[in-house]
């Protein structure tokens, strides 16, 4: 059997040599823990800045403004306000000079840097508390709206983009016919079509879907066409010497050969769709998570803003991980993961003989 670094048992070595080899794959256990660290490190940094006093904390939340009758340049310092540390010190100097009661307060971070527990709480309460104004959307409603826009935008884009890309990657004629123009449009930022989309398609979801479509479609055609072109030409030659005609070449060699690559492309492009989402949702009538974030920012509920941002990240990560996992089963010839194939085979065997012959 071939040497496979994934399964080979490593020789015990010093941890540092083991972890920091040049292009040396990590063993599965280290892989897992280093992956955990990838999230733990930023989180710990966030906790440190939020909870350890004096790491940053550039402001003071005034608990008692002291003697507010004392006049001065900084007399605006009032109870319950966040003021910069130097302003607070200057005010106390004024109060001290007048021999009046000094202001007290606690050092805090600016309102836009919320502590982990506050965002955590917001993540929970955002789903449970009704919106501030009647008619506004709940967080889960906003999330659903966003997902719907992404889904339809990406659906239409893939429905036309993938076949067109495969066509361009297969026939140089279509490559020459479509790619120069696609290349031209690709450089126009999708949001510039926003106003146009609203005029043509109205204020509801359609223009947003259109912006996502425009943002991903043109890139998709080029990426898909490249992936299709990467299918080994010698496989096409082999198929031709086995008697495949033009249509069979496309359906039995080009398409299956490009499929795993196309699947990876789609995973990357879904990420792009999410970046266009934020712009798309702010055109016409604001909607979805972006509208939620926009509104919460105006109410200065930054914990909710973070909650919504984290949710976008979590949804994106989960989608990608799910698709990665699914891919392992869908393309067993690349991964050696044959569980799904074996299941399908078993199901086929269970079918009556006649149907089996028709299917295979």
């Amino acid at each position, binding site marked *: 059997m071939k040497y496979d670094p994934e399964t080979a048992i490593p020789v015990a070595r010093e941890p540092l040599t083991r972890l920091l080899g040049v292009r040396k794959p990590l063993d599965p256990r280290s892989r897992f823990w280093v992956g955990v660290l990838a999230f733990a490190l930023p989180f710990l940094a966030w906790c440190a800045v939020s909870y350890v006093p004096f790491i940053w904390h550039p402001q003071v939340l005034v608990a008692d403004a002291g003697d507010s009758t004392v006049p001065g340049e900084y007399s605006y310092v009032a109870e319950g306000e966040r003021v910069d540390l130097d302003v607070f010190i200057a005010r106390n100097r004024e109060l001290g000079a007048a021999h009046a009661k000094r202001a007290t307060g606690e050092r805090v971070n600016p309102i836009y840097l919320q502590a982990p527990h506050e965002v955590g709480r917001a993540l929970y309460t955002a789903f449970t508390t009704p919106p501030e104004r009647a008619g506004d959307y709940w967080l889960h409603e906003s999330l659903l709206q966003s997902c719907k826009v992404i889904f339809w935008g990406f659906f239409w884009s893939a429905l036309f983009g993938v076949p067109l890309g495969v066509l361009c990657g297969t026939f140089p004629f279509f490559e020459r016919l479509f790619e120069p123009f696609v290349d031209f449009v690709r450089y126009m930022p999708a949001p510039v079509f926003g106003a146009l989309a609203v005029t043509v398609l109205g204020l509801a979801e359609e223009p947003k879907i259109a912006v996502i479509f425009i943002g991903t479609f043109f890139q998709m055609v080029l990426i898909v066409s490249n992936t299709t072109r990467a299918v080994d030409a010698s496989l096409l030659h082999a198929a031709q*010497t086995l008697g495949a005609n033009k249509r069979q070449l496309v359906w039995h060699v080009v398409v299956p050969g490009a499929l795993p690559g196309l699947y990876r492309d789609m995973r990357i492009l879904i990420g792009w769709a999410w970046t266009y989402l934020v712009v798309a949702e702010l055109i016409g009538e604001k909607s979805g998570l972006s509208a939620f974030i926009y509104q919460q920012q105006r109410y200065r509920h930054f914990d909710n803003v973070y909650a919504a941002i984290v949710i976008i990240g979590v949804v994106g990560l989960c989608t990608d991980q799910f698709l990665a996992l699914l891919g392992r089963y869908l393309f067993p010839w690349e991964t050696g993961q044959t569980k799904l194939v074996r299941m399908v085979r078993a199901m086929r065997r269970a079918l009556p003989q006649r149907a089996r012959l028709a299917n295979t």
Partner: protein
Amino acid sequence: MTDDRIALPSYLDKPPEVAAYFEAIEKRKVVLNIEHLRREFAAAEGTLVALSDISFKVRKREFISVIGPSGCGKSTLIRIVAGLEDPSAGTVSVDGVPVAGPGPDRGMVFQNYTLFPWLTVRKNVLFGPKMKGTRNDKALASADEWLKMVGLSDFADVYPAQLSGGMKQRVAIARALANDPRILLMDEPFGALDAQTRCSMQEHLLRIWEAADVTVLFITHDLDEAIYLSDRIVVLGARPGRILEIIDVPVSRPRSQEQLLSGHFLATKKRLEELIYRRDTAAAAEDVTHA
């Protein structure tokens, strides 16, 4: 210095059983006929002639090798026969019908295996029959038979990525033969394999060739391989690629590895070396003087 060279027979004088064998071949039908084939490429310094006036015939059940130094156009030749490239002049015909483009009558085995990675071994072998629309159960039986012939019955449901190089090439041979071609074209099929595997693959191929009704056109740069496998060897020279000589191999069949040291084998090898290497060095010397 003592001269301890062995006296070799001439490569031209055949033992009686070999002579009879060649007489029998001469009576068979011509499967592949190559006539005055020429191939030119446009290059920066004018047209480059890759192949010039190539003509030879391959008869039914014959095993013919094409050998030559690198750059002699042997791969171009087999790709033209396969229909993957067009000749600049001349014709290639199979059973008297001129070829235009690739077709299932000329099965091909490539150096880099070219198995479809998304198909299991059995489905790779079934690819040709499936394209032709052969009935499923019939094709399946024949595919399994070919897999048995190349000794890979146990690997029918495995993906190509899980096979070694030699196994992959055996699948490729089974795949080409399951399509029932008139002639099997092999383009340096064992070139990427290590010496041991190459040796066992030659055995495999000979056994298949003896058992099945196959005509083979085989490209190689390995002299031993060419002599060991072939009935006849077409020797090409480089710049332009042209036929230097067509040699009838005077080694009797069935072949075995011991024959690699027989007089007739060595005589043939000596002749091939003269044709290829001496000419190569002579040509190189000529190039230098011209420059």
